[in-house]
């Protein structure tokens, strides 16, 4: 399946520098869902969060899950800022290879993560590998955090994003849409 489906007319939007991609293709969660609904066979939604986020935070039922980064705990290993000693993330070296197993370079692919940062990294890696129609779903599944110290929801991922746009999501998953083990 190698259809290219373009999004409907886009409103001007601001994409943070860290979430920009070399392809320059962006959609909002609402636009992404509308594109998928119009052509569920030709439009692919790719969720690049960790397995644990996909399962525990929830996901769009028909999103394919190929993690870009794996969580890592190794007391003797590196730490990420603000994390306990040995807690870090590790780039999935098989990310592009795994995506290539299930999707073609000319496919229309809408990529999401939690808020749009990892998705941008994933889009850039896929672009380098020859993919051309890969969109970043800006604000991601969870959305940005509310920045209002007076709000009881200050700091929570409730500003925008897929879940806050009342788009469908769930905890139940189809194992055939997930890269559960490397020898699948």
């Amino acid at each position, binding site marked *: 399946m190698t259809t290219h489906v373009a999004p409907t007319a886009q409103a001007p939007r601001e994409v943070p520098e860290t979430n920009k991609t070399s392809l320059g293709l962006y959609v909002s969660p609402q636009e992404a869902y509308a594109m998928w609904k119009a052509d569920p066979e030709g439009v692919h939604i790719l969720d690049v969060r*960790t*397995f*644990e*986020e996909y*399962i*525990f*935070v929830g996901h769009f039922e028909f999103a394919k899950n190929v*993690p870009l980064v*794996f*969580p*890592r*705990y*190794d*007391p003797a*290993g590196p730490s990420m800022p*603000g*994390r*306990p*000693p*040995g*807690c870090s993330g*590790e780039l*999935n070296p*098989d990310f592009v290879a795994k995506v290539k197993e299930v999707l073609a370079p000319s496919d229309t692919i809408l990529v999401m993560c*939690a808020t749009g940062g990892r998705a941008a990294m994933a889009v850039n890696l896929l672009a380098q590998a020859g993919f051309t129609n890969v969109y970043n779903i800006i604000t991601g599944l969870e959305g940005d955090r509310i920045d209002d110290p007076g709000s*009881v929801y200050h*700091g*929570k*991922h409730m500003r925008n994003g897929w879940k806050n746009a*009342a788009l469908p999501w*769930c*905890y*139940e998953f189809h*194992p055939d849409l997930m890269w*559960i*083990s*490397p*020898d699948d």
Partner: protein
Amino acid sequence: MIATHDSLPIAEARQTSLGLYVTAKEAYDMWQADPGLKILDVRTPEEFVFVGHAPMATSIPFALQTYEWDPEKKALRWEANPEFVAEVKAWAAPDETILVSCRSGGRSAMAINTLAAAGFTKVYNILDGMEGSQVKDPESVFDGMRVKNGWKNSGLPWTYEIDPERMKLPPRQSRTFVAGNEHD
């Protein structure tokens, strides 16, 4: 209205050998009356970080998520944290009061039974956990979502921010990779 534990039916999976139960709201009230009281979160590190947690809780995972699909149970297999009891013993004395939380009261019951067998005596199960039960109402836009009860739905403080001192990571490196390298 948040029920007290007396009015909640206690499902078998949430019952413990110690028979000590509280709701999330009751647990928070107990902690407010005595901020020295220990609150233990036994979910995976990923749930603690990505779903969010009570700021005063300490994370010692009872079980970890594997990425192996169990075709009979139609779920991903869990794996016990071999250091669980040792980590709790290093953190609390057997006669201390500990309030234990997981997602919705099941894993915490298993954790409490394990601690009781190791000599702990005052360990309460927070029945509705951090996320609470799923709404069972097909007509509701929240059907299947965890917005029924639980710490996060009870107006109690929670956060994504990590205090590294409050996370006792299990001795484990990233899983998929190790397995993947074996197959390469």
